[in-house]
């Protein structure tokens, strides 16, 4: 059974159709990318999945169960976590606190328990702390738990955001431009890191990304959006040679020059 299915999802802002009739199926343990020019509706689609927006039409199913109309916190509990295009950490909390907040849905201490600090509560806190420490280590922040998040360097903030998302133990992880603002070397590291999330943790990845080298290098399937509509879907190789995609990215008439044109950065498409 597919992990996530979007059926005819549409979202309108006033007169603007940000997402229109989008169909999409993500199989478990795949890395799936959504690409498209700026304003194509990628982040809007993310927001529909995570419950920030209510889609106007269509349905979104996680494990066959509709998640439309559920609040974001419940959707997270069902197994979807995300990161943000502009890093949105809890800036004045420490790295480990950020991850501990991510563990929130899996802890049970209430007000009364917190006040009396029973054995059970202490055990839960100790386990949470151990898990948070392990997660920090996994994302490459070992020993930096006491750093206030806003004081971490940019690359580590991105890592921490992933760590916080992992803390909610997601089945599906939505990464919104995880390599934005990174140099090629860092982007390459991030690519390996995303692959590890899938290979070692078994998490399905849904990726929005502009770095074509990253997208083509790690995605199993890609959907291309333009003006809120899906204009193509397929493997990286299929996408790279699709005339509509090239047109969307480079304008009409460019289709003739197909090869290498999707390559925004200086590097050649990794998949070719």
């Amino acid at each position, binding site marked *: 059974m597919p992990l996530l299915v979007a059926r005819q999802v549409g979202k309108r802002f006033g007169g603007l159709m940000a997402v229109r009739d989008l169909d999409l199926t993500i199989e478990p343990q795949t890395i799936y990318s959504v690409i498209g020019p700026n304003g194509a509706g990628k982040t809007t689609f993310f927001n529909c999945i*995570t419950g*920030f927006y209510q889609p106007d039409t269509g349905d979104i199913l996680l494990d066959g169960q509709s998640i439309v109309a559920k*609040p*974001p*916190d419940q959707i*997270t*509990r069902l197994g979807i*976590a*995300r990161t*943000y295009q502009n890093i*949105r950490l*809890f*800036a*004045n*909390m*420490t790295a*480990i*606190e950020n991850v*501990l*907040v*991510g563990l*929130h*849905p899996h*802890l049970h*201490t209430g*007000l009364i*328990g*917190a*006040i009396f*600090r029973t054995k059970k*509560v202490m055990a839960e*806190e*100790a386990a*949470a*702390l151990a898990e948070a*420490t392990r997660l920090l*280590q*996994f994302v*490459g922040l*070992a*020993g*930096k*738990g*006491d*750093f*206030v998040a806003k004081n*971490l*360097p940019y*690359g*580590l903030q991105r*890592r921490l955001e992933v760590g*916080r998302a992992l803390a*909610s133990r997601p089945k599906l992880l939505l990464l919104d431009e995880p390599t934005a603002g990174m140099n090629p*070397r*860092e982007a390459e*590291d991030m690519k*390996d*890191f995303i692959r*590890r999330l899938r290979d*070692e943790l078994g998490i399905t990845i849904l990726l929005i990304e502009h770095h074509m080298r990253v997208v083509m290098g790690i995605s199993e399937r890609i959907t291309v959006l333009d003006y809120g509509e899906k204009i193509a879907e397929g493997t990286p190789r299929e996408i790279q040679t699709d005339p509509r995609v090239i047109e969307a990215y480079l304008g009409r008439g460019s289709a003739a020059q197909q090869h290498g044109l999707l390559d925004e950065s200086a590097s050649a498409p990794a998949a070719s």
Partner: protein
Amino acid sequence: MKSHSEPVWQTAVRLGLYGGSAAVLFSLVGMVQTFQERTLISGVLTLGQAFLSLAVGLSAFAAARRVQAEGPQAVLLAGGLAGGAVGSALAVLILVIAALPDIRTVFINASPALTAILTFGQPTVVGAVLWVGLGVGLGIIAAALLLLGPAVRRTVLSALGAVLLLGLLADLLRLITEGWNLSGIGVNFTFAGLFRWMFFGKGLSIAGTLVVVAVVIGLNVLQARGVLARPKPVRVVARTRSQQIVRIGAFSVLLALMPLVLGTYMAEVLDQVFIFVLMGLGLNIVVGFAGLLDLGYVGFFAIGAYGMGILTSPELHVFNLSWWEAMPIAVGLTILAGVILGIPVLKVRGDYLAIITLGFGEIIRLLALSDALKGLTGGPQGIQLIAKPAIGGFVFNDQVRLYYLLLAGCVLVGFISVRLRDSRMGRAWMAMREDEDVAQAIGINLVTTKLLAFAAGAAFAGLAGAIFAAKIGAVYPQSFGLLISINVLALIIIGGMGSIPGVIVGALVLVGLPELLREFAEFRLLVYGIVLVVMMLYRPEGLWPEASRQRELHSEEPAPSDEIGDAPLPIKGSAS
């Protein structure tokens, strides 16, 4: 190293004129006149004079520090000029008042009495010239303090501070020490005698001043010689358990003895402070932890107090419970009110939340005042004969006894605050404060998290209200005005948002201090305003900010080093 482009004289005059404007303003609002009635050193210095001198000294010192890089002459010049500018401003004020007697129709305090104070009783022109000279002189002295280095500066400033403090609190000290004597250990020595010698009228005597100065200088010298250890910065973490117990024990004994030693009046002041600490700790959860700006917090205080009144007062012939029976019900009612307020404002943020809660506070007060509920709340007459708490035969019926009840309440509430802060719920509140959307997306249920914050905050205010009602013995609608909410919010901000010790410091500064300086009560709000502005400009994090707490639970890593720069990210191999 000439880092600033402004010429020295310009800096000095500018800062001097700031100080001068302040001095003129304080004179015109009547502060100087009120302060004049307070003697610091009898026959020598009044608080009014000290206050104006302070304006001179501070301006001159600030100017001198700005031009420190230009060398000692520039420093002295700047000090003199700035001081002179303050003096000149006062001189102009003296002359203007003399030339335009009609100015009183606008500035009612610009009276002959003010002139008399400002001119030291001399003729107008002499007084004016005197102030210019005095300004220059004091300014140079202040600048010289900067040049003389930190050791001398600290000595002089602490001596001045001690004189100011003792002079101000002379009355209070007399009140406190009156009953003390050492006859119990066979010494025929009364503090009253010492007092008569040290103090005269409402201030220090000259002999007393000299003693104070000598003692302070002596202490400073001893400290400089290393005889007395300088207080080391307190380390919050890494204290051993036994040390901690000793500390807490000593502190408890101190707190327990406080009202016995300090007397009824101080106990009353501390009672007031404690009531605000209770409220402050509650609002700190709502505003400081959860980031929900609540301007109607007094509403919960009122509900606690009225709940206690309705449940215990025999006037109403309804319930007539004892205090202890009524207290949990009253607190329960406030929690309920907190949840009821919380539900409609769940979707509301920031400014809008502040306005809605503001309305809530007013609604509660107006309900208490209304005719509709007169049968229950007594309308403007309020409720009298509210029960006092009692344990066995011990009735908490005076300030000293109530002190212990309030102290117990504060300890309990403080303990709960700390536990909540360090829990899963505390983290959720802080995450919500940082970024509500992300907090929700990370799996935090905003509805329960917000409602729990409101409920916990309301509960503390309800307890404060219940004790307040018992303390006064009556409740009136006027006791629950908007200003209480503002006070509580201000003390949290002054103390440091989200900081539990900050609440205590804030309450001492904003409630305790004004209570001790009651005769200046009419300027309370003015000083409040100034303190808040200055705090926000120079110390926005508060007096005792929430330290970036190191997690003691941490096992492995050593203190984080600062070489995390731009080194390549170690992805591979970091998993294990």
